[in-house]
């Protein structure tokens, strides 16, 4: 049983075949491993940074943790009501299958309210540490080109934002609370363009909260007068954004003329709706930077 097996003597041809197979196998190993490692190039070069869905594990431009934790399944893509999330392709190397948002094409407008993508993520790549849109830190908006801004030029806006063929969706609460509609189906007629302020999800939520607060106060007042205890439960208390994100401010320019200009405030979460809705053709006046977030602007 313990006798050592004699190694069989192989014919020349067999030995030659074995040697060839060994060389082939080595080449296969080197080839496949180098190809897969070429996938690291975009992250080494730093060209992989993109706007990511809410809760993405990232610190400014460093997305290593996010790429590592993401299992590339696209469940976040599937739950997004405005189809804002897309999956990266092979040109992003190891970032393949990782979700990103192209804000100009379709921004995240938080019309799911509860951050569905975060809830859908099976690996925590979109961290569960946040509950509400105002907790999000995706980026930070910036006036890229104030010279083209319609508000700064004192102009209004009439018609379809971004033209009739634009596919982008937004939720308009006053039209349908539950399903977003095409921006093209919702023409505007504004004396002074304030689209980036008007459609900012944080600003919309703040005004809703204010309205609710007023209603509540009125109900309590009405109850007092009727001699009853008002039964109005505290609603949406903690999801009301604590800070404003954007507002039009009157700014005096060099020629002494006062003009309105959108100013980005500390409450901005970088969702990109302003970038999407900016009606300036070619390149928007306002854009979202991915290397800044409100806490460390």
């Amino acid at each position, binding site marked *: 049983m313990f006798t050592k097996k004699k190694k069989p003597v192989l014919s020349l041809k067999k030995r030659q075949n074995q040697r060839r197979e060994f060389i082939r196998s080595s080449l296969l190993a080197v080839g496949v491993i180098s190809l897969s490692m070429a996938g690291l190039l975009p992250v080494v070069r730093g060209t992989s940074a993109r706007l990511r869905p809410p809760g993405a594990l990232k610190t400014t431009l460093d997305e290593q943790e996010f790429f590592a934790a993401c299992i590339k399944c696209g469940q976040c893509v599937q739950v997004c009501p405005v189809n804002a999330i897309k999956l990266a392709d092979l040109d992003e190397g190891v970032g393949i299958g990782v979700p990103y948002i192209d804000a100009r094409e379709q921004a995240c407008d938080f019309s799911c309210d509860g951050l569905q993508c975060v809830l859908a993520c099976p*690996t925590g790549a979109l961290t569960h540490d946040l509950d509400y849109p105002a907790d999000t830190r995706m980026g930070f908006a910036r006036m890229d080109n104030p010279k083209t801004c319609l508000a700064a030029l004192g102009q209004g806006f009439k018609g379809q934002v971004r033209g009739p063929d634009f596919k982008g969706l937004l939720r308009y609460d006053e039209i349908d609370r539950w399903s977003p509609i095409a921006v093209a189906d919702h023409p505007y007629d504004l004396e002074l363009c304030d689209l980036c302020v008007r459609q900012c999800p944080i600003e919309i939520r703040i005004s809703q909260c204010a309205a609710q607060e007023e209603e509540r106060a009125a109900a309590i007042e009405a109850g007092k007068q009727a001699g009853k205890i008002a039964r109005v439960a505290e609603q949406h208390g903690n999801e009301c954004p604590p800070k404003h994100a954007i507002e039009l401010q009157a700014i005096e320019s060099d020629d002494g003329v006062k003009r309105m200009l959108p100013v980005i405030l500390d409450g901005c979460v970088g969702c990109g709706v302003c970038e999407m809705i900016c009606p300036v053709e070619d390149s928007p006046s306002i854009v979202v930077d991915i290397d800044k977030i409100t806490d460390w602007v």
Partner: protein
Amino acid sequence: MNYILESLSQVFGNKPTRPDKSKQPEALKAIYEGKKGKLTKAALEAARHEHKSTCCNKWQRRRWLTLILVNVLFLVSYKFDVQLLEGAMTASRFVGFHFADLNSALQVMLAYKHVVLNLVIGTSTVFVMWLLLGGRTFCSWVCPYHLLSEWAEFLHLWLAKKKIVKNHTFHRKTRSIFYVIFALLALLSGYTVFETISPTGIVSRAIIYGPGLALIWVGFLLLFEVFYSRRAWCRYVCPIGITYAVVGTLSPIRVTYNAVACHHEGDCRKVCLVPHVLDLTIRGAAHGIDQDVIADCTRCGMCVDVCPTDSLNFKIKGLDKFL
């Protein structure tokens, strides 16, 4: 022969253990002896012909149907929002329950070095599922690349028959080396490097979310398999196969071999994705009259379909006595 140890040994690239002649049962030796020189070419052809008239590719049809159904279910769940099977092959939710592909989950755990509860749940569910269903059953019954590769294989075999292409083999240990290197790469680089080139994830995402550039890589792999090396990715590279093969060592669903009627003509080895597991069908190579095919087997059923003597069959260990 220990089934688990022998399975692991073959999965990691060793040759099948040859039986010790002195330990082979006398009854088995008698069976081998009784068949010496008995089979003529005409008789074999007749046996094949008779077999073909009774059945045809029953398991292949069932398998293709299952594979296509699963992948279509992913697509339908997304496109029509039926929420039955959301996600992709790497991780999904089946009627709300978390599922995570074991190899993708392993890569994420090694790279991220944190494991959230949902991933633990998803990984455990899938582990138990494939433990019961046969481990590498994933490869042949679910993996979308497997089906493409199977079609490429038909083309390869047809071209090889016409002597237009020649099959080049690699050493099976290459796959183990890939397994270790990809695990180390994930651990050290902090990126899931294997996912970049994994055709399983790429094809699955392409089916669900639409095609992209990455399909060029898949096309290249298929061409490589057609013109250079039969089933190269599944046989010599893919670490997913190793992960599920290890799970499969403990699985009760197996293909089992009975030596009594076997002609040892080798039709099963010709159709098999992992022919080393069927070396036991060579005359003199079995350890007993009945022997289970080891866990590197993908339970695809091609050998069960092709065997002219019904010497290979599916079984559920522990249940076969009751069925």
